[in-house]
């Protein structure tokens, strides 16, 4: 059996010229593909080449990478604190969050997608966290940032960052998914790779103060005050209504920490709201104010955006919770399986309603399913990593994953989802994703009717 080998998705590793070269050469057979196409593709790559390679025994009887000792085995390496803040390897430079070409006309009201196809486990490196800005991002001086609580409270209060960071803190892992994740796929296949189909998704350990603590300090009326308006401090004045029940449960956090350090500016430094299970737009960045009220606020991004157009022309509003969903990240669109043999099918599953209970994987377009292994930790409202052994026999295969959460909710097929919600919605597409592995090893984004 050959060892499983795989070329990562082209967006991460090749220029458009390189992608073209790889595909052209690939069509002429695998040997040529390996030796010729890669040389051609590699020649056009600006960054260093980290690519799938064969592992043959050379005719001279020994791999030169074994036979000849490299510099790092014979020389002296670099000293401590050469970099005060460490960087990824130079060989990983193509691992980037990326914009979808042509999706938006300004970069300040836009999106960048996390490279899910190359991430491991459940934590998204902070520098690769997806971005969604409504009026550009800022690096705000924390000594000048203020947080206000007003509305139905005994005394409106103002807090500095220092004061918030003196309060008892909690640290929790949660996923954040944009309500518009997978939006372009509602009617048909639109984008080639998992980075663009599912990349408005990230998971971090967030540290902060439960919002209920700050509301209590202001003497909030928790009986009449059924809703909280959360407001950002940057130019878009992003505002969203948060139901009080999520806050009194202690789940909603006013967060300053992300993966052990302060939030990144692109993610709301120095203060953001964390609303576990709820779509990303409610996780207000640059959080400056919360107001307690007795009614929902129907803000711009609740009355015009982030709602679901139904087939009958009416909209579903306040569909805040991200329902159970999963996606296979390898093999996934744009990758190329170089040969038959063993592959680890891996992916991510999540639910805004709690823990993922099980994930089933099909390699034949949904006819037969096998239960995947859920890797620890399996946490509520966090990403869960799943894996499944697979030996590819070289024949076409359609790979799917189907998640179920602890409430019993099962991720729907496109057929099931469209039967209820049509195809013209933008938000909250949690359908089962299909990847077609072609005989030549290329993986394509497809939808199974």
């Amino acid at each position: 059996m050959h060892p499983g080998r795989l070329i990562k998705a082209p967006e991460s590793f090749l220029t458009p010229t390189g992608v073209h070269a790889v595909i052209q050469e690939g069509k002429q057979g695998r040997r040529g593909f390996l030796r010729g196409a890669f040389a051609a593709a590699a020649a056009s790559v600006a960054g260093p080449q980290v690519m799938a390679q064969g592992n043959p025994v050379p005719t001279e009887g020994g791999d030169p990478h074994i036979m000849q000792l490299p510099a790092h085995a014979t020389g002296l390496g670099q000293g401590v604190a050469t970099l005060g803040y460490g960087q990824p390897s130079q060989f990983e430079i193509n691992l980037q969050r990326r914009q979808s070409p042509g999706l938006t006309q300004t970069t300040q009201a836009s999106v960048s997608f996390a490279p899910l196809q190359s991430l491991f486990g459940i934590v998204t490196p902070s520098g690769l966290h997806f971005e969604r800005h409504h009026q550009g991002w800022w690096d705000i001086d924390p000594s000048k940032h203020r947080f206000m609580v007003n509305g139905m409270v005994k005394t409106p209060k103002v807090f500095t960052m220092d004061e918030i960071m003196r309060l008892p803190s909690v640290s929790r892992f949660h996923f954040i998914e944009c309500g518009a994740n997978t939006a372009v796929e509602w009617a048909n296949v639109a984008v080639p790779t998992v980075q663009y189909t599912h990349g408005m998704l990230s998971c971090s350990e967030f540290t902060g103060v439960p919002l209920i603590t700050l509301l209590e300090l202001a003497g909030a009326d928790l009986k009449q005050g059924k809703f909280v308006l959360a407001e950002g401090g940057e130019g878009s004045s992003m505002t969203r209504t948060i139901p009080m029940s999520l806050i009194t449960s202690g789940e909603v956090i006013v967060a300053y920490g992300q993966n052990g350090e302060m939030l990144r500016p692109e993610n709301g430094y120095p203060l953001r709201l964390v609303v576990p299970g709820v779509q990303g737009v409610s996780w207000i960045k640059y959080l400056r104010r919360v107001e307690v009220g007795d009614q929902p606020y129907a803000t711009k991004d609740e009355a015009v955006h982030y709602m679901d157009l139904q087939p009958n022309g009416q909209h579903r509003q306040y569909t805040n919770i991200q329902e159970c969903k999963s996606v296979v990240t390898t093999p996934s669109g744009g990758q190329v399986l170089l040969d038959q043999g063993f592959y680890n099918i891996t992916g991510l599953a999540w639910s805004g309603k709690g823990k993922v209970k099980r994930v089933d994987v099909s390699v034949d377009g949904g006819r037969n399913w096998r239960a995947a292994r859920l890797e620890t930790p399996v946490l509520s409202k966090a990403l869960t990593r799943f894996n499944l052994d697979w030996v590819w026999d070289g024949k076409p295969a359609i790979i799917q994953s189907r998640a179920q959460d602890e409430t019993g909710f099962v991720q729907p097929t496109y057929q099931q989802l469209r039967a209820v919600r049509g195809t013209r919605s933008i938000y909250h597409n949690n359908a089962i994703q299909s990847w077609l592995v072609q005989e030549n090893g290329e993986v394509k984004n497809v939808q199974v009717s």
Partner: protein
Amino acid sequence: MSRFLKVLLTCAVLSMAFTASAQSSKYPGVGRNATPKEVAQWDIDVRPDFKGLPVGSGSVAKGQELWEAQCAHCHGVFGESNEVFSPIIGGTSAEDIRVGRVANLSRPDYPGRNTLMKPLHGFHLVGLHPPRHALDSPQVLECR
């Protein structure tokens, strides 16, 4: 009053004062009261029931002037522009206003969906939205 009683009373009073201050905050020294001025500066949201709506001023003509100076750059003179963002207006009819439903929203072949097709049933936030092309300008819009 004996010295002993005086001490006892003082202690009692001090202890009451301390209890009162401790009860006012579980976390003494964290946070302070917001001033009415501060709240007024930031509390600019308006609910669908008009709670929070400030006393109005101006005229349609003044609004048009403001729109053309500050908004038309991206959104078009009539809010119809598709250049930078999707259009704000279009696709609605007088009949839609009469029945309260936008007919085009139920047409699968109708591609455009814009702001005014959606909130006919309600009213949304008045906020501060500085125009992107004039971020260094001291002027700030008063409505959007």
